[in-house]
């Protein structure tokens, strides 16, 4: 009876990726390209382990770079959700507020978060504040827009049913509107987190004060001409982004079991 979606990914799903790695490895082995310019996966993996132990610059472990990046993402994420969710629910619920908000949103939204870097640095300086601001910008719009359309898309028959069963305004919002819109909201969070993560790493490329961050580590590696370390950093960015996406996807599926 229960139609559960598979929660684990079969190993066979990773075969195409594995084939690419093998070809890449073979290409380097037969010297089709220079391992210095384009190091093979085995070398990148070795470097990644080395970066975890020794760090780049020395003492600055890969895991610490990742933690700092994640910290910036988390802060930006919390700020973005704290603003986008209430605004989105309000705009979805009240057509008047939506009309007022719409032109402002549509004017700011097309500006890519990266175009905000110069002004963010001037306003907030280099550091946690500006990077959180940039990531918050990246997350804010997808969450806002999906929340608005999620709330507006709630089938009015659910609201009618709840009203005839005695639901007041507060219950209507907390027990009907929010759960009904949640799958759509989470889709927005998923898209937003992706945009935010990309924005963050780009923002770190322009510099950080703490000396930590995956983007910052990549820039350090570039200055040293260490392509292997650049690729290891890029791999870490990809892996973390992938894991975050899977987490949200899992929540998204859980909340939309039925609909």
């Amino acid at each position, binding site marked *: 009876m229960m139609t559960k979606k598979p929660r684990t990914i079969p190993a066979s799903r990773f075969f195409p990726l594995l084939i690419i790695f093998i070809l890449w490895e073979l290409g380097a082995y037969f010297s089709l390209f220079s391992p210095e310019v384009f190091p093979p996966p085995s070398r990148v993996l070795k470097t990644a382990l080395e970066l975890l132990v020794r760090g780049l610059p020395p003492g600055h472990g890969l895991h610490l770079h990742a933690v700092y990046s994640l910290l910036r993402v988390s802060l930006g994420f919390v700020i973005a959700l704290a603003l986008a969710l209430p605004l989105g629910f309000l705009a979805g619920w009240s057509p008047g507020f939506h009309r007022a908000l719409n032109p402002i949103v549509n004017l700011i939204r097309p500006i890519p978060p990266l175009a905000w870097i110069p002004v963010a640095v001037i306003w907030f300086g280099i550091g946690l504040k500006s990077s959180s601001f940039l990531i918050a910008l990246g997350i804010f719009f997808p969450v806002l827009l999906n929340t608005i359309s999620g709330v507006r898309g709630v089938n009015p028959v659910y609201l009618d049913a*709840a009203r*005839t069963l*005695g639901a*007041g305004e507060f219950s209507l919002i907390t*027990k009907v509107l929010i*759960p*009904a819109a949640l799958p759509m909201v989470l889709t927005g969070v998923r898209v937003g987190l992706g945009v935010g993560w990309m924005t963050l790493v780009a923002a770190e490329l322009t510099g950080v004060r703490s000396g930590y961050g995956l983007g910052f580590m990549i820039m350090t590696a570039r200055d040293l001409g260490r392509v292997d370390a650049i690729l290891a950093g890029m791999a870490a960015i990809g892996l973390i982004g992938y894991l975050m996406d899977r987490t949200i996807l899992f929540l998204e599926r859980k909340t939309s079991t039925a*609909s």
Partner: protein
Amino acid sequence: MSLILENISQEYPGPGGIPTPALDGINLELKNGRFTTLIGPSGCGKTTLLKIAAGLTRPTAGRVLLDGEEVSNPTPKIGLVFQEFALFPWRTILQNIEFGLEMQGIRSSERKKQARELMRKTEISGFESHFPSQLSEGMQQRVAIARTLAAHPRVILMDEPFGALDSQTRNSMQEFLLKLFRDEHPTILFVTHNIDEAVFLSQTVIGLSQRPGRIRAEFSIDLAHPRERTSLEFNNYRREILDFLDRERKAL
């Protein structure tokens, strides 16, 4: 005395600002424990009338009275069963049925006890932790009826509740509803455009005209339950209502 619809008229804003009338001067009294059905051509405003009776829509003119008190907002005293079931897809079957009791602030253990009892009565026990989409449409409508009953309504409004079901399921749901009616004696206002269904279920059938809906006829179905769908008397009632609907259609 129970639910009274007093001189109800409804208009919608139409093209060019000219209001389009949907209902015109409806007077209807639902006596306690009676099964009344509204029948009429499609687009005659049956659903609008039910929404007004439920307090979901405010009529342009007229008022709804429940035991002498005016109904201006939805109330758990007047239950509504929808054609599209309107079950909450994010809640389990048990949680759906509990909803009305939750709104009344009844504590969890008592809610679950009452909901389980209703599930037994509506023959859906065993599906407590399923989600609506995992049930057949007939079962979903039983859940929706149980959810409405859970709030202890004085009157139950049903808007073509079996309209989305196939004819086999529809027949069995009609029998299910009759059994429930016999055991619980609720006051029911049922909307359908299916003549067979109206004659099979109702004590009174009210005939509405084309838009704007007006009450044009009242048929009293004086047959004992259970009714034989192919009996001569049953067919006579069907013909009488069919003739009425034909006349109404041609009157356009």
